[in-house]
């Protein structure tokens, strides 16, 4: 006998990419839930001794400032705009200064620099620590054997009068993260098809309360990128499929291992103004069990300091500006 209904339903399968979306979300929740599971599962096991250089995770060589500055799921690198100051002008009485006319002083752009944390989940930014250090948790990205690990550790370049941005890293790679919004049914179908065919990295397609469909699009950039400045662009740390942690170890462990890939790495950021003035800042990356605290509204804050024996923590990456 033949069960026509079963035969019919057996032709219906889970949509392509949906399983990856679930794993994507699971990784994000794992990172968020970690502090509640005090020292269980998330973060590297450690001794009861207080932090010392010897006890610190490998390559962690600096004691970070115990300042409550944070990043939750994304890091915004704020290149704090360019300050304007008058260009040097000829002194009175010197050639070129007749004293007969007042010409407006020429101006050059002098870039200033800073770090600001940005929490994508709450669309909130946070100021930097006094020394410019900033930290964020790992485990909120997306990993596939085909595309590698998009770690979810994002940084955004913001500021004024920035014409070009150049980013490079000396290990692993970077990726661009862009939110595609107001997706039509046709676009949703195209993205799902592209995910199914492996043309783009799998990502969660979501709908806001106002009905707008959106999704992040993640594109690997290799070890560096130089491009025109886009204030909405975000970049993140990426581990290639060849370099990423083996699968099957568990989401948390894999994310931690991929984060460790950047331990000791150097991120270089250069911005260029319209007149060609450049400003460069390098950041040394460290990984370890970072102290977290909870704000009054229930948001988790990752501090750029190693957790003490009795502190709640998440495994995270800290970027420390170099002199």
């Amino acid at each position, binding site marked *: *006998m*033949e*069960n*026509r*209904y*079963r*035969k*019919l*339903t057996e*032709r*219906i*399968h*889970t*949509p*392509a990419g*949906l*399983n990856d*979306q*679930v794993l994507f*979300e*699971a990784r994000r*929740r794992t990172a968020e*839930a970690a502090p509640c599971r005090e020292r269980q599962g998330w973060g590297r096991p450690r001794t009861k001794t207080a932090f010392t250089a010897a006890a610190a995770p490998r390559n962690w060589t600096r004691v970070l400032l115990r300042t409550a500055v944070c990043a939750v799921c994304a890091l915004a690198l704020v290149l704090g705009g360019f300050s304007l100051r008058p260009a040097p002008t000829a002194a009175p009485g010197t050639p070129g200064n007749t004293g007969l006319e007042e010409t407006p002083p020429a101006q050059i752009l002098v870039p200033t620099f800073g770090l600001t944390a940005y929490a994508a989940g709450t669309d909130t930014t946070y100021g930097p620590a006094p020394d410019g250090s900033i930290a964020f948790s790992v485990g909120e990205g997306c990993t596939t054997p085909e595309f590698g690990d998009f770690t979810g550790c994002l940084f955004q370049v913001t500021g004024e009068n920035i014409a070009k941005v150049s980013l490079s890293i000396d290990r692993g790679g970077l990726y661009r993260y862009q939110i595609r919004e107001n997706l039509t049914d046709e676009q949703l179908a195209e993205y*799902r098809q592209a995910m*199914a065919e492996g043309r783009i990295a799998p990502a969660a397609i979501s*709908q806001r309360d106002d009905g707008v469909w959106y999704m992040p699009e993640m594109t690997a950039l290799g070890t560096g990128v130089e491009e025109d400045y886009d204030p909405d662009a975000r970049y993140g740390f990426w581990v290639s499929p060849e370099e990423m942690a083996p699968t099957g170890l568990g989401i948390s462990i894999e994310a931690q291992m991929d984060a460790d890939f950047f331990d000791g790495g150097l991120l270089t950021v250069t911005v260029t103004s319209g007149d060609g003035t450049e400003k460069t800042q390098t950041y040394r990356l460290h990984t370890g069990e970072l102290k977290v605290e909870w704000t009054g509204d229930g948001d988790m804050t990752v501090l750029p300091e190693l957790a003490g024996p009795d502190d709640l923590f998440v495994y995270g990456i800290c970027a420390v500006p170099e002199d």
Partner: protein
Amino acid sequence: MKTYGDTVYRLALCRLQNAADAEDVYQDVFLRLLEQRAGGWDGERTKAWLIRAALNRCADLGRARRRRGGVISLDEVPDMARPVDQEAAELWDAVGRLPEKLRTAVHLFYGEGYESGEIGALLGVPAATVRSRLRRARAELKDLLGGFDDGKSLSEVDGTYPYARRAE
């Protein structure tokens, strides 16, 4: 997800008649499983847990959202093996027009192969209630399918006994 993903998705799609809502249910159910699952669950226990969780989530969504109208066409179902013949499309449409409780019973009985007692345990109702819902469903399907023999509407079984795989 590899083993029971299709089961959860099909159930949610049948129940909600909306692909996006079914995807939401799918994601919520498996995230709950990942968060809560203890070791040592056998396959059937996991499957039953998933079905119950999916039914609960469907009920939540049903309360939170007004149904977006109508029965989802097989042409609108993502990742549906095609082509779909006319009879299959009519059967799907007919089942989709059943009241929610009847539709769920039909899907679990014919689509998943559960017996009425098992369905009763999943839904939290007596087996007799499930049998009653199946009888009503078959009666309604007979009308919906324009006078088809109610047994053949869901399964091609010799004689008048309508059940596809198992006798009650």
